[in-house]
């Protein structure tokens, strides 16, 4: 019966796909909120105010600039995500050459 070997192949394909999904998801799914957290941290540093213990702290413009940069990275990745969904709905997908995506036919 060929069903047995197709089953083994399914396991094999799934194993390969799972590793790739895990890798991509760690980079995007864990990386993105971590960059965002760095942005929140920088913003807190930049705006001064109070620490968690309530002690007053001075603000630092460099912190705000860094925060804006980090939030921009997050926004860029979110925009890429939306673009990917739009392109996927049209039966295409994105290929990356450096930072800029390009539409290609789905394999």
């Amino acid at each position, binding site marked *: 019966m060929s069903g047995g070997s197709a089953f083994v192949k399914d396991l094999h394909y799934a194993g390969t796909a799972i590793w790739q999904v895990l890798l991509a998801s*760690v980079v995007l799914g864990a990386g993105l909120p971590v960059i965002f957290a760095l942005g929140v*941290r920088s913003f807190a540093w930049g705006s001064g105010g109070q620490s*968690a213990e309530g002690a007053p702290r001075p603000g630092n413009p460099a912190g705000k600039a860094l925060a804006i940069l980090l939030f921009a990275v997050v926004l860029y990745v979110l925009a890429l995500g939306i673009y990917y969904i739009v392109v996927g709905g049209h039966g295409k997908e994105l290929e990356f050459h450096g930072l800029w995506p390009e539409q290609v036919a789905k394999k």
Partner: protein
Amino acid sequence: MWRWRRSAVTLVVVSAETLVLVLVVVTALGFDFTNGFHDTGNAMATSIATGALKPKVAVALSAVMNLIGAFLSVAVALTVTNAVVKTFSAAVKDPATGQVTAPAHLTMGGDALLMIVLGGLIGGIVWNLLTWLLGLPSSSSHALFGGLIGAAITANGWDGVNWVGDGTKLDGVVGKVLLPAVASPIVAALVAGLGTWVIFKIIAGISHRTSEEGFRWGQIGTASLVSLAHGTNDAQKTMGVITLALIATGHWSADASTIPFWVKLACAVAIAAGTYLGGWRIIRTLGKGLVEIESPQGMAAEASSAAVILASSHLGFALSTTHVATGSILGTGLGRPGAEVRWGVAGRMVVGWLLTLPAAGFVGGVMWSIGHVLGNTGGAIVEFLILIGLAGYMFQRSRHNAVGAHNVNDDWSGMPAASGVPSELATGGVA
């Protein structure tokens, strides 16, 4: 006189088939609607639980994203049912010349296909409504697949089901349903857990207010992304089913690479309306039942869900947004030191997931048998009436302990969704 009688008979035959088709389309849209409200929580439960968005605003935002997402599905996979049932053979092209060597065609008669699809849809809806009543997040795709599998086994025997595919790609019940269901929640939990753990290291020491306010926006952005992806993926499934029914009855060409605009419009509106209704019972379980979450965890969960869903669709790994979202939320509890994870709630969900295929399949099989005994037209009408009856009954039961925008965030200990659920529904009737 003779001529007149013959055309009258033809008219009756045509309208009988059309009636079945109309019932299939209406039932498919009903399934799409339950798909919407069953899955609102996948994207929005965390934002509602942390107060990043007011409950009504959250479901409205999710509904709009689903509506937009549904309209983005231009390339609808007509072969969606093929993942589990052998229904449709797509056109085969010679890779070298691009010439069509075998045109797209159905693998069974149109009537037979309609009855399998109708039984499958009803199985999916009944299981979706029952799990909603119990406040259990479970996969709408699995419910649909389960119903189709049950109807197909009853109709065409064990061989009518595409169990493992043909070995050339991940396919069949094993490749597209079972393996992803096991793997995707684990992957999502790992990613969300890792994200949560690192985030809390980074923001340690900054004021609670600053982090809640900052992550509020991250949560809204990532949750919207999940809603958009959901609209594109899930509405597409119903569009595929309806278009398949139109092809089966000769109302649409099997070779067409497009779908009728009214199908797209109807499916988009149905899933968005369902999303806006909000499956509050499920939102409550996901947002308050599994773990107590704060905004940073909410963002980690939704970012993980979005990444896993998009990466998987990129790699052709079919998965359920529900399994991913549940895994992600669980992961944020595991990744935050000291957070409580309610394993009892998680265990109930897993039991629900294990029951989804057989239970929806059972209903699908019974429905197909009714159609088989009563004949297509009478059977389809009776099946539809049974569906209305069951849906009405479950809606009535839900009124006894209504969960809505007003109490969705109440403390879990006084869980309105669990205490009032009739025990016979929790244990019997489905197994």
